């Protein structure tokens, strides 16, 4: 994973959150954003952003971290090679 790739994923996630703030409190917004990632992000993208939150949580906003906490880890299970 390149840093550029991660930067783009973080940008995408924060953009999704910013466009869904109207849903209410952080918990609700995070749930909506997590659902969006679940529906539209590839497995590898979910893996990368979950790895990021482990290694560099400071690069993500609080709502983004909350979003990733709600993301089903099953959806990011590495594919069989």
């Amino acid at each position, binding site marked *: *994973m*390149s840093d*550029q*790739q991660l930067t*783009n994923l973080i940008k*995408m996630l924060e*953009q*999704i959150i*910013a*466009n869904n*703030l*109207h849903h209410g409190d952080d918990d609700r917004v995070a749930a909506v954003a997590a659902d*969006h990632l*679940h*529906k*539209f*992000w*590839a*497995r*590898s*993208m979910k893996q990368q952003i979950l790895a990021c939150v482990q290694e560099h949580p400071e690069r993500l906003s609080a709502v983004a971290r909350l979003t990733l906490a709600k993301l089903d880890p099953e*959806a990011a299970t590495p*594919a*069989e*090679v």
Partner: protein
Amino acid sequence: MLHYYDPSTQSYEPGKTGLNPDFDYGTPASVSETLVSMSIDGRAITVPEGTSVLRAAALAGINIPKLCASDNLEAFGSCRLCAVEIEGRRGYPASCTTPVAEGMAVTTQTGKLAKLRRNIMELYISDHPLDCLTCPANGNCELQDVAGVVGLREVRYGFDGENHLDAETDDSNPYFSFDPSKCIVCSRCVRACEEVQGTFALTIEGRGFDSVVSAGQGEAFMDSECVSCGACVQACPTSTLMEKSVIDAGQPEHSVVTTCAYCGVGCSFKAEMKGDQLVRMVPYKGGEANQGHSCVKGRFAFGYATHDDRIKEPMIRDSINDPWKVVSWEEALAFSADKIKGIQARYGRESVGGITSSRCTNEETYLVQKLVRAAFGNNNTDTCARVCHSPTGYGLKTTLGESAGTQTFESVMKADTIVVIGANPTDAHPVFGSLMRRRLRQGAKLIVIDPRRIDILETPHGGEGIHLPLRPGTNVAMVNALAHVIVTEGLEDQEFISHRCDSDAYDTWRRFIAEERHSPEAMEAITGVPADKVREAARLYAQAGNGAIYYGLGVTEHSQGSTMVMGIANLAMATGNIGREGGGVNPLRGQNNVQGSCDMGSFPHELPGYQHVNDAAVRARFQAVWGVPLDDEPGLRIPNMFDAAIAGTFKGLYVQGEDIAQSDPNTQHVEAALKSLDCLIVQDIFLNETAKFAHVLLPGSTFLEKNGTFTNAERRINRVRKVMEPIAGMEDWQVTMALSNALGYPMAYSHPSEIMDEIAQLTPTFTGVSYDKLEQLGSIQWPCNDASPEGTPTMHTVDFPIGKGQFAVTEYLATEERASRKFPLLLTTGRILSQYNVGAQTRRTDNSEWHAEDVLEIHPSDAELRGIHDGDWLGISSRVGQTVLRAQISDRMMPGVVYTTFHHPGSGANVITTDNSDWATNCPEYKVTAVQVEVVTQPSEWQRNFQQFDQRQQALLEPAMQGTDQADAQPVR
């Protein structure tokens, strides 16, 4: 299918069924519900009130001679050949201008009428060259036919009198000639230009004997306002306006009805042939989308199909620095399959993917995504809709429950107010643009929301439209302001909302949109549009009766593209403009099969029919038919594929009919991604920009060389019929099938109809679609299933697929791409009439005579500030790159906004567009790029590199194209 009107067995339904599209009924159909009974030559017939006697006779099987009449034009009554006798009336009225009346008894053949008609023809022919045997129209000339029908045997006046026989031919148009020596001044061309096309470029100049058809004020056709749609050529009853291809090749001897492969209108054409040579494309009157009209692309720009640049044989190479090597299909496919399997073995199952084509057929698109999901074993499939209408899919599915427009094109004829947002129909969807103009001439009101003053605002006799020239990137602010007016001024359709929409979602939205911060006055500082104009537009739309919204990429290609689509759906639901003719939400799809490619499961998260890959029941149905387990997680979108390629985890890509290197944003990034691939397989008709980075080149087939279907912007599935053999021996669906077989996943279809049968089996909205039904009905608008066995012209008439309509909160967020001191101008992009998308097809036709290069349109004040003059070379710099284009001073945009098109690869329009994208779908934000502009003297560094790379790749291809010994070709480093 052709519908033959049989008066003995069928009742006549106005303008719809029972008619033969190949027959000219003389005058347009009347749509009256009141029926009138009368007799013609003793035959009884009942027709709608308002029908002309000429048309009634034609419907009764009686052909009255005519020259100035045609059933796509209002009656004119100038040639007088259609004169008849009517019992109880004096004289010989023209049957074209005489409406039927109850009990009327008409006689069409008497001795006096025969003499009258012969006399008329004698006068015509006395001023007409008698060169029938060498005339291009010989055998297909209405003047010749009528002369025969009336029994003309002599011209008593001789040919020495004053005449027009020496009039000079105007050959300026590359596609047709105008020979006034053969003109009978019937005005059909002039009226076609007015009534069908709506351009009003032609006129009759002079009076009496001096009357001549003129393009503009005595200008040559190419110098006039003529847009070369071909309506005049089609209308001409002689050889005066004639296709040059017919002049060169002679009259065609057979024809095949098929569907145009240019824009999302999906016009039906008769491909008129001599053997396997396409002589001309004639718009087909039986085509529901175009109803016999055409544009300069579909009508004339088909020469690319036989262009020398066509890739005719499969080719392979190990590196993009190597010469191409011509190989057999078997070798090319085995090479491809080995590469893909090797990559997957080394880098994992998800390290490869495919891109489907919005220019290919539904069946071909279906097969590519099937290959990715079943043979590659992942969901890494995407399509060019990613970069155009993916927000339409997201936004309309969220709010209305289906990822498609709601209407037929014909619906616009019942609209009272037409709203055009971020679309340019007269250039990008010209045949529909003409229909829209027709409705505007009938009195419908027009609202245009666009940074640029587009041509639909200047519709001759179309009234004055309201133009809201908003700043690029402020669409959502504008749609919120419009909705605010509707809500706060009590203009909502409460009955529709209470019956059809989810009340909780509506209440939430209503509270949001009623906030003062969304008022036009509050938004004026953001949009730049005066509040009173916004209020006027909102009232006009909401109180229209029927309000119809048409939108294009100026809506979707923004960081809030999906939000804007939902905002549009909100407007339509709030005003009850959904579920009936004349209203609706109508995305104008850019390419011929964007709708179809989305329908066919091209997106990485959806199987065909927009069925999510997460849904176990859906997957189970596909797995049962496809015989393999399917991944339950979405795959990579195109931009994510690029990122992964640069990161080294995505190594193989199969691209069918899509030029991502030219059409996707931030070209340098795309090029870096393509160079990172171990195997790029490109299936295309030319060495396009993407193919220059490829390792396998599989020859594609044009729409003329294959069978299948396209689905247009009104969800209409139309047949594509093969008129000539594929240049490399295989249709595109056969190539994908062979590749799949080489990969070890068997596919065995013998005809695209079998693929459609499989699509129907697996896609709930297509269960009733089959080739047999397409032959019966001509075309089908999906959903077509048990609930709607003949298709669905207007959607959401009773309820929504999701039950209740869902209002969505649409908070405006400014894009990160903002003007600054360093980049003070905002660049936006669009299309032009004569060129099509990346231009690979139209640049290889004479259409380039209209648009040989992309230019930068800049406002006079911005130009003056920078010392820019018309024609100067301009360096255009953005935060990601620089390119150079020629200046065109234009006041179509407001100051601060510049505009260009993207039809030529060397222009590098996407060198300067950024990676910003829609929050929900990653559709690129092509429409907003902050730039600076200055006068320069040389191409940009990227352009110089592009030119060198292009020359190198052409050199690597040339030996293969010329069939030279491959051993002689050396790698170029």
